[in-house]
């Protein structure tokens, strides 16, 4: 390989990737950080104002509402998805006839465009003509027919349910990959010791999947902080920004209100919050492992 590793060959092979990557990933992050320190309305030169955008952010009630909604979406998704995806994986892991087809069907929502997912769920959640409320009225449970979307409180919970539906099959597939790595011998040994199914689940399967659970929590965090199209289709952040999540709020501030500098401050803070959430979770799970080790 030495013969072909002349400097100009290496440069030639690396250059196109590095060029596009630097211009469209690295440079934009620098630009975003710079604009977040300015006031800029799209005309003329951006005016440098230091950390004022960030100070304004702390006083901005809509920012806190979007943060709260994002946390609700994340919470709902974690609570719904971790047990149900794990359960689905356990079921798929057995020798069920056509389990490949079932796996593919459950995975399908993760593949179609998120903008389409949002639109489909409008017809499920719409308070007047959506599936859920029409169904509830039909079986005589009118009192449960809430305003799932478009009201003042329930939208982020609904968004969490939609996201759970979207990535259920995907998260279950990761669990399945984890289940495949557990050696059969352990189960056989526990058979000899007379362990029943529940004991096997609690003392073998779940502890052995520790790593997989962690991966899935991290995946769910990244997915939830990227939700954009669903909110756009269901309510577009309304009424009066009440159902906004961080990403849609950033988008609306930047491109609809045209406050580019302030919008970039929201973007930078959103990125930082994502990182903090992941770091917190990883720190927590590490501590638990250390305690167990002692």
């Amino acid at each position, binding site marked *: 390989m030495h013969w072909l590793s002349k400097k100009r060959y290496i440069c030639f092979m690396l250059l196109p*990737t590095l060029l596009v990557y630097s211009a469209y990933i690295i440079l934009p992050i620098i630009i975003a950080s710079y604009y977040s320190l300015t006031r800029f309305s799209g005309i003329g030169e951006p005016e440098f104002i230091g950390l004022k955008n960030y100070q304004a952010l702390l006083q901005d009630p809509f920012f806190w509402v979007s943060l709260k909604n994002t946390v609700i979406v994340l919470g709902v998704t974690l609570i719904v998805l971790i047990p149900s995806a794990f359960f689905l994986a356990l079921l798929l892991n057995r020798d069920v006839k056509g389990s490949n087809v079932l796996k593919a069907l459950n995975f*399908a929502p993760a593949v179609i465009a998120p903008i389409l997912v949002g639109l489909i769920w409008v017809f499920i959640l719409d308070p007047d003509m959506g599936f859920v409320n029409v169904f509830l009225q039909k079986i005589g449970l009118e009192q449960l027919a809430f305003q799932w979307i478009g009201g003042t409180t329930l939208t982020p919970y609904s968004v969490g349910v939609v996201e759970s539906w979207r990535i259920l099959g995907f998260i279950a597939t990761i669990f399945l990959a984890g289940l495949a790595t557990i050696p059969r011998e352990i189960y056989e040994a526990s058979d000899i010791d007379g362990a029943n199914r529940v004991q096997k689940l609690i003392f073998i399967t779940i502890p052995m999947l520790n790593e997989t659970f962690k991966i899935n929590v991290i995946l769910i965090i990244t997915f939830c902080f990227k939700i954009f199209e669903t909110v756009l289709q269901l309510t577009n952040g309304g009424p009066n920004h009440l159902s906004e999540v961080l990403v849609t709020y950033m988008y609306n501030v930047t491109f609809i209100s045209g406050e580019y500098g302030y919008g970039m401050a929201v973007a930078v803070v959103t990125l930082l919050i994502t990182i903090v959430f992941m770091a917190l979770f990883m720190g927590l799970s590490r501590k638990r492992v250390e305690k167990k080790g002692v």
Partner: protein
Amino acid sequence: MNQAMTQRQENQNLAKSEKSKTKSKIWSYIPIYAITLIVMLPFLWMILLSFKSNSEILTSPFSLPTNLSLENYRSAIATLDLLLMYKNTIIIAVITVVVVIIITFMSSFALSRMVFKSGKLKGGLYYFLLLGLAIPPFILLFPIYRITIMFDLMNTHASLILPYIATSISFNTLLFMGFLKGFPKELEEAAIIDGCNLFTLCKSVVLPIIIPVIATIFIFNILYVWNEFPFAVTLISSDSLTTVPLGISEFKGRWNIDYGGIIAATVLVMIPQLIFYGFFQKYIIAGMTAGAVKG
């Protein structure tokens, strides 16, 4: 005699366990089919509604459609320029995917096979290229919008192709590097001794070996471009450049309260995606899980 007895007993035991097996099988069938049905419900609901008139949708949504009305589909096809949406998306997807596969293959080949003077630089570049996996695209929207204006690319196919290439680099690097690292170098070294140059080495020796990973990357990249919405809505304002996701985002506004039209349009773009997925689900599932687990 004795032996025959144990044999019979064993058979009986076997039959018993067989019986309990079918019983437990039924118990595992019911929940899995129930879950799958619930997951499929939104799709089925859309398809059912798409054959109903607007008044039926509002008054009797659950009953089967009285006469299979194709009125909604007629309205959808008449209102939408499906051909244009698909044409733009296909142009952008094909150019993006071909270019990004070629350039990320080149850079991954260099980083996994070529000899660098400094090993640190090589490792550093690899992690540098993976950084993109952790960066959400939303922080890039406005800066890329500015860059696009600066390059005078607004409302061209290139305005989307370039960011799509950039945001695919990290994922492709991860998969290419993972595959190339696990592959022995002997064949390539033999080819070099035989006097192969860099181009023929890549084309005739390495390329045939990495076809499976290219297939996964190809389908994964296509899917990403096909579904991408945030960049498209930010960078495209001209109707003649509308992509499939952009078209979908306008359904609600176009038909206002003609639910039938929106639903039929939704089904019309949903079905091709599901068919595409049906054909390539193996690669898609492999690509998505590999990216997630390794990342």
